[in-house]
């Protein structure tokens, strides 16, 4: 066999091998990432979710039906921060006062969530 033919064959084989391997792994990684993103989206869209979170009451707006809480991490929704939440009923606001450390339930279809229960923990 002529040498340049052999070399061409080997190089082609290597290129095909590298290309195939890259395509295989690359595609697989891409597919896994897409599936993960889809699963995440499915988990948070259109489905009612419920979290139990701890926090501190920072302010109460009775006329708006809003309670401001400094809260811990809400997995899959938002990190720890100070933020106002709608309350499901006025009773929830009346049960606590500013400075109370509380455990509360957040329920609803994101982003339409509300505080449904609240209790003091201290």
């Amino acid at each position, binding site marked *: 066999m002529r040498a340049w033919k052999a*070399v061409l064959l080997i190089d082609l084989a290597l290129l095909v091998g590298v290309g195939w391997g890259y395509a295989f792994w690359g595609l697989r990684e891409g597919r896994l990432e897409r599936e993960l993103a889809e699963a995440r989206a499915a988990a948070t869209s259109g489905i009612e979710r419920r979290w139990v979170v701890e926090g501190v009451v920072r302010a109460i707006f009775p006329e708006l039906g809003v309670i401001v809480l400094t809260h*811990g991490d809400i997995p899959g929704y938002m990190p*720890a921060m100070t933020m106002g939440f709608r309350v499901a009923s006025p009773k929830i606001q009346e049960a606590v006062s500013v400075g109370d450390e509380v455990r509360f339930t957040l329920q609803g279809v994101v982003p339409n969530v509300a505080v449904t229960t609240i209790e003091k923990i201290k």
Partner: protein
Amino acid sequence: MPIRYTVPVYALGLAARWLHLASSVLLVGSAAMIVLAGRSDRATAQRWEQRVLASAWVWALVALASGVVVVGVQTALFEARAEAAFEPQALGRMLLETQAGHVWLVRAGLLAVLTAFLCLRVSVERRADWRAARGETVLLAVAALLPLAAAGHAAAVEPDTARAIASDGLHVLAAGIWVGGLLPLARLLTAASTEAGADARPYAVLAARRFSRAALAMLVLLVATGTGLAIIHVGSVAGLVGTSYGRLLLTKLALLVLALAFAALNRAVLLARLGGDGPTVGRPAMRRLSGFVLVEVVLALAILVIVAAMNVTPPARHEPPAWPFAFRLSLAALEGRAAEATRALIGSQIGVIGLVALIAALAMRAWRLPLGAVALAALGAGAGLALPPLMIDAYPTTYLRPSVPYQAGAIVAGAALYQASCAGCHGPRGAGDGPDGRGLPRTPADLRAPHTAQHTAGDLFWWISHGIPGSGMPGFGSRLSEDQRWELINYLRALSAGYAARTMGPAIERDRRWLVAPDFSFAVGPTPPRALKDYRGRTVLVVLYALPGARARMSQLAEREGTLAMLGVEVIAVPIDADPDAIRRLGPDPRVMFPVVTEGAETIVAAYRLFAVAPHVELLVDRQGYIRSIARGAGEAGDLEALAAQVRLLNEEKIAAETAPDEHVH
């Protein structure tokens, strides 16, 4: 049987790595040397080419076999069991699930292809065929060598991993072409210098010249990439002389200089004599050159031993350096000493003249001797003048990095240790006026003094650990743990920084960042703890307040929080009395939305009191984590517009990543 990095394991790993490196490099060099020398129709040259190809095949096999041993040792160390080296599952995990494993697999595959290719009987009668076949050998050998960079220290560099791997790859490649080409060259010269090999003599001369040119280019590449890699992996003089990695690098450089001396001799003297004929030119020169090239080969193989050892040694950057000298050189020594500064300046200028003379001596052949003498004299005189004023006492721990970061908790722990062990002599506030200090051979140091620029944290660590002979300062190495000593140093740094901070007022000084805000962690109620560091990139107003005095100011801040937020300011309120019920005490009106610390306040207040003592303190921390202004008051409502103006000034400043403070004192 558990396995650790014992001497036999280390020796086996080192030997296998060296064998692997040497054979991989020789493989690349052999292939490249054939291409460099070119095709020849002389019988001796063709015999040489066949012999080099045959040995390349052997090198490929040796590289494969030693690679298997390296992977085995690596697996045994990963799994911490000697038997793991022989277990298919363990080897599979190592090869398939780690990046180093993938690299080894790819390289083994390429080496196998190359071995098979070298066995292939192909005709190279025509020029195109010869080029294709020999070019393919180079291509496969280089492709098998390059990924080595992605399995070594360079792959662990953060950030700029890709750049580090690329530098390492180029470095290895240049080494391969230079070092690996020496042995085939020596064989060609030996063959051509015999009576029977006379037909290949012109070919050998041409090959030697071409190799010499290529080697020079590779050397430039080696020095450039090597310098880059040294900065990445070593990074400091202390790392170079104070760690095992740095010392290996120095050894490698010494061997390299020796090898380069031979290379320069070969290039300048012997290469020039190859062409002619006569008693001292031609054949004898060729024989001597082949001998000298062999010496270079031996030195290069010794360098590869060092390289193999460096591969299994953690890079200097990740090791605590032990400074080997009793002094160090620092410009800080000149602070406030005008006469010495002048002397150092004059000395440095004489040194520059010497440097210019040296360059001129290298460039101008005719004036080399006198210019060289001038250069040496000037460099010596310059160093003699400039260096002594720069000398500062140093200790083995001088460049040690604190194991405890600069945090409020460490400062408070250090303060307690200080009161227990140090206050007796150095005084309760560090002024050096303690009752036990009277009558000591030397007055205890005033620890608040700003002379600390001359002393590293490592110097303090040495004095606290071992004492200061003849001064009355005892060593605490046996009484305090290492972490306790670092806590104490963190306190001392905060103490002296706090003393300097007494001049800092409510107005910021543009672009002057010197007072690092010690990090602290805090929590609001049952929420997860946060740290001041998490606010990097935003301006923070740390407010140390006490009710009822600061009621008016707190109401004002709460009402105007929106305005502050728009300027990019986050408020963190810390009750001085550390009341866990602080949020309730602030009450519902006006609404306070910024974090009010209910856990961790005591530590924050204790540490930050070193910077300012007042019933109400507001510290403005800039986006990089430096305290830029301190407002002390009683808590009365103030001019928020003035605060906003300061923040606007901060927002106008340009910030560069490298000006962020170190997490540790130094």
